[in-house]
């Protein structure tokens, strides 16, 4: 076991991915396949008067033009799953309003171009703060009677809903949700503090920018079963959502989670209802592959946010009070938003004496809000960690020491009202402090600086199960329903190998579809390894019991006196009395065999969280003439519980840091004043490409999670959280002036330097 866990190994899917052998959802051959092309709204807010379909239907090869009324929907709400095409009211520019379905992709595109949609424009709600004012125009005029889209919230993060709203506050109907958390006398705490800082921070809509655009293929089997082959983060959640939207029995829907070309929170039953609706309406297989521009315009990016934040400390650096008013632009998502998460996470992994934290979820005519790696956390950390640096500056304290002085430890009660479980905040900050870059920060050339920041993610939980099966050749197959996101399958392989006693190379992992897989929730919330991992351990242990029972009879040794090491069952203390796993398995798996198959099923239902903390150093250079910021070097330290496969862990740490650099410097979905998207392609929307990403040092900190598999915890989301703030703190030092809006583009930095 010792040489199984903690060893850097390539991902199981790496050879196939690198050689192009992986078959993604857009690649499968389906006989008689039709191709759908969405027609996207050009108006941000309008009533649809009607369609002129004549020219479209005249295109050779076009089979049908489908609008909302043509899809066999159950009418369960106005969320994107229940209403994949705008029914009467367009609520954002880019919303799908019709599908053109044709025998070829080219015919579908020709037809889509010719479709005429007659809009009656309505007043667009674009400014999220103005949208909150009593009397503001509403972003959606049709009443939303029975919206169950909130179910999707359950797959992201473990976040409470806070206390009762402030009934006295006058707000417009665009404010869909208010979350309030109060404790202690905030005003008194501010008054008794030695330093008080406050500011307003703004962050834009940010696109998940997965490599593989959203795609889905759907068809009906002759038996009537609907089969959905798709790029999704969760097969069971997609099955549930499709069954709800189309009023189908669960057993009539089979969802196949194909290999995922990236998701980052964005792939949850968004395009599936379009392909499914068309396939059900036309009774033929239908594929929908979004183009990149469609994916930019029509999907569900991270919310824009406005955060008013005020924090204070005593002269010795003890944090006293925090007050936040956080406005989350949900766009058209009436089901859920991150106002609860962001107004919780804004307190950071720190102790406070008093807090008053408010979150507002506001609808506008921009996109549909969706999850993005650590939803609501990078925006919260950008505000908090910026102000912590300001406090450190005012009090002349070392920024890391300030944070260390206040970092939570197990048992400290957070702003949620619950005590923190085991958490490695102190360990991570101490490790970061030891990095040579921190010591070098005061001896850098003019225009360069190092900034630091921390961030955390609480993790999430959902019951899960797994199956382990040993074949006659002695190899093991682990079966789960988990979409293989961020390399979780490769993690299951070493978990199963360690728990069973096989070399990891002899374990493969299969993502089965909803017809046959054991249950697990969607890949999200940093919960897969933490919740499915223990199920894999128990499944492997159950299989091991079958192995030992059979081997005990063969070797005439009690099961309790046997051990399994590297694929060999042997007597403890007498290793020459042994059989290979293959020998035992082959005796079980044959006609007339006397032993049960070497298989096991295991489940888990975690009830304790395992938050992960990550802290960053970012070394930047600011060009004072042009405003350009170059990240020269970046360091990330993260508590991962236990690094089951350090290569994958470091990949998550680097990936999070890179996306955080994107938030900090490059990424913004920008609309014009009328609500039309200006940055709807990679010609306009910048991401941190390889040439802009510096060397990233990864410092793995291991504070074992008591209930995690071999001590591991979910690590996917924490690394993005503090990265934008670290870059912002570095820019503030290098430029001598702070920016309160992301991204810190050259024009904005230049403007800040001038004023």
């Amino acid at each position, binding site marked *: 076991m010792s040489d199984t866990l903690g060893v850097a190994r390539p991902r199981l899917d790496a050879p196939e991915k690198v050689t192009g052998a992986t078959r993604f959802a857009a690649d499968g051959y389906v006989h008689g396949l039709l191709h759908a092309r969405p027609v996207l709204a050009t108006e941000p807010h309008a009533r649809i008067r009607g369609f002129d379909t004549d020219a479209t239907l005249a295109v050779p090869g076009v089979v049908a033009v489908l609008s909302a009324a043509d899809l066999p929907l159950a009418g369960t709400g106005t969320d994107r799953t229940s209403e994949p095409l705008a029914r009467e009211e367009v609520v954002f520019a880019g919303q799908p309003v019709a599908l053109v379905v044709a025998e070829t*992709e*080219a015919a579908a*595109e*020709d037809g889509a*171009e010719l479709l005429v949609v007659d809009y009656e424009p309505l007043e667009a709600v674009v400014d999220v703060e103005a949208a909150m004012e009593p009397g503001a125009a509403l972003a959606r005029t049709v009443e939303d009677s029975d919206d169950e889209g909130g179910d999707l919230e359950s797959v992201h993060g473990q976040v409470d809903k806070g206390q009762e709203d402030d009934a006295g506050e006058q707000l417009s109907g665009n404010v869909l949700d208010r979350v309030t958390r109060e404790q202690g006398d905030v005003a008194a705490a501010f008054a008794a503090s030695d330093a008080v800082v406050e500011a307003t921070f703004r962050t834009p809509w940010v696109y998940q920018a997965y490599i593989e655009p959203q795609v889905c293929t759907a068809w009906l089997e002759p038996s009537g079963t609907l089969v959905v082959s798709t790029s999704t983060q969760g097969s069971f959640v997609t099955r549930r959502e499709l069954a709800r939207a189309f009023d189908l029995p669960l057993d009539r829907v089979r969802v196949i989670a194909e290999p995922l070309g990236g998701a980052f929170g964005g792939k949850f039953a968004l395009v599936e209802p379009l392909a499914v609706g068309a396939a059900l309406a036309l009774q033929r297989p239908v594929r929908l592959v979004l*183009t*990149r*521009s469609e994916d930019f315009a029509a999907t569900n990016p991270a919310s824009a946010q406005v955060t008013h934040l005020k924090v204070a400390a005593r002269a010795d650096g003890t944090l006293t009070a925090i007050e936040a008013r956080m406005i989350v632009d949900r766009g058209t998502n009436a089901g859920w938003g991150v106002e609860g998460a962001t107004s919780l996470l804004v307190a950071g992994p720190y102790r406070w004496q008093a807090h008053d934290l408010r979150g507002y979820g506001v609808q506008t005519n921009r996109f549909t809000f969706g999850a993005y790696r650590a939803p609501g956390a990078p925006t919260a950390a950008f505000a908090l960690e910026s102000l912590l640096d300001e406090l450190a500056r005012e009090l002349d304290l070392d920024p890391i020491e300030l944070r260390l002085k206040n970092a939570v430890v197990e048992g400290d009660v957070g702003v949620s009202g619950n005590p923190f479980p085991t958490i490695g905040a102190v360990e991570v900050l101490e490790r970061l402090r030891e990095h040579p870059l921190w010591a070098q920060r005061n001896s850098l050339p003019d225009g360069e600086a190092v900034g630091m920041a921390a961030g955390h993610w609480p993790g999430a939980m959902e019951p899960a199960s797994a199956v382990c099966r040993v074949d006659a050749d002695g190899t093991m197959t682990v079966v789960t329903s988990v979409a293989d996101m961020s390399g979780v399958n490769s993690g299951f392989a070493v978990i199963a190998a360690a728990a069973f006693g096989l070399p990891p190379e002899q374990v493969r992992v299969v993502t089965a579809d909803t017809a046959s897989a054991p249950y697990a929730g969607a890949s999200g919330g940093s919960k897969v390894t933490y919740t499915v991992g223990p199920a894999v351990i128990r499944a492997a242990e159950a299989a091991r019991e079958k192995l030992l029972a059979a081997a005990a009879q063969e070797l005439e040794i009690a099961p309790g006196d046997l051990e399994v090491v590297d694929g060999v069952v042997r007597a403890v203390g007498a290793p020459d009395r042994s059989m290979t796993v293959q020998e035992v398995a082959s005796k079980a798996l044959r006609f007339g065999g006397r032993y049960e198959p070497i298989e096991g099923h295991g489940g888990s239902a975690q009830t304790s969280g395992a938050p992960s903390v990550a802290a960053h150093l970012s070394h930047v250079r600011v060009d004072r*003439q*042009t*405003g*350009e910021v170059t990240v020269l070097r970046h360091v990330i330290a993260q508590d991962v519980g236990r690094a089951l496969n350090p290569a994958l862990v470091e990949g998550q740490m680097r990936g999070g840091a890179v996306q955080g650099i994107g938030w900090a*410097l*490059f990424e913004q979905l*920008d609309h*014009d004043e009328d609500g039309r998207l*200006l*940055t709807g392609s*990679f*010609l*306009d*929307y*910048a*991401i941190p490409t390889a040439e*802009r990403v510096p060397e990233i040092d990864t410092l793995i900190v291991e504070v074992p999670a008591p209930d995690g598999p071999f001590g591991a915890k979910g690590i996917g989301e924490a690394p993005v959280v503090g990265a934008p703030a670290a870059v912002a703190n570095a820019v503030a030092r290098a430029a001598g002036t702070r920016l309160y809006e992301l991204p810190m*583009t*050259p*024009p904005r930095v*230049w*403007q800040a330097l001038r004023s």
Partner: protein
Amino acid sequence: MIPAETRYARASDLDHALELLAEPDSKAIAGGQSLIPVMKLRIARPSLVVDISRLDLRGVEERDGEVHVGPLTTWNELIGAEVLQRPPLAAVAECARGIGDLQVRNLGTIGGSVVHADPASDMPAVLLALGARLRLRSPEGERALAVSDALVGPFTTTLEPDELVTDIAIPMPPHGSGSAYASVEHPASGFALAGAAALATPDGESVAVTGVGLTPFVLSGDLSDAEIFGDRFAPAEYRRALARVVADRALSAARERAKVNR
């Protein structure tokens, strides 16, 4: 992302190309790095695409005090041309090195870039600073046209629809000259937010800028009076300041190269 229906023909020689291009709404294609993207967006929908990529209009040659660049010469071929490494014309190779990525530089051509007339395209600024001239052919005959007279607006030139560029002639600056290109790129597109090419000769200096106006232009004065383009990402005020910075940077680098060339 699928172009509208179009026909395709490959020209066997220059006369054949001109004959094919007589068709209204036809379009010449060489490297396709500008035309194909706009066709995929259906902004351009030519009835006929005339492939001129096999014509003998490629290469860099120094003769009679000029450097002649074939319009089909790719960015990578420019980067590799010896005469464009030397200080007087170093701006050309320097500029080409910063264009697109390797795939774009393997296919994209200098002639296609100039006639596409993207207002933020890099190379036209270099050709303006160096005083380059285009040689044009049409069924009616031949003519010469200064690059400064060819570029009149965004994606707009004074070329006739049936004219093809057959040569780009760059006067060889005198001994003791140097040239350079400097730019600040849009972080997504890589096009210049502001770019500047400079030529420093013993007789004088010239600077041309791109990315900041309706078309690249030769600088006269300090840009205070120039009409500068702005958008939500980079307001005009910023681009004006940036143009000054890159102009200074290009000019300093050109002067440094001129010293080496003495």
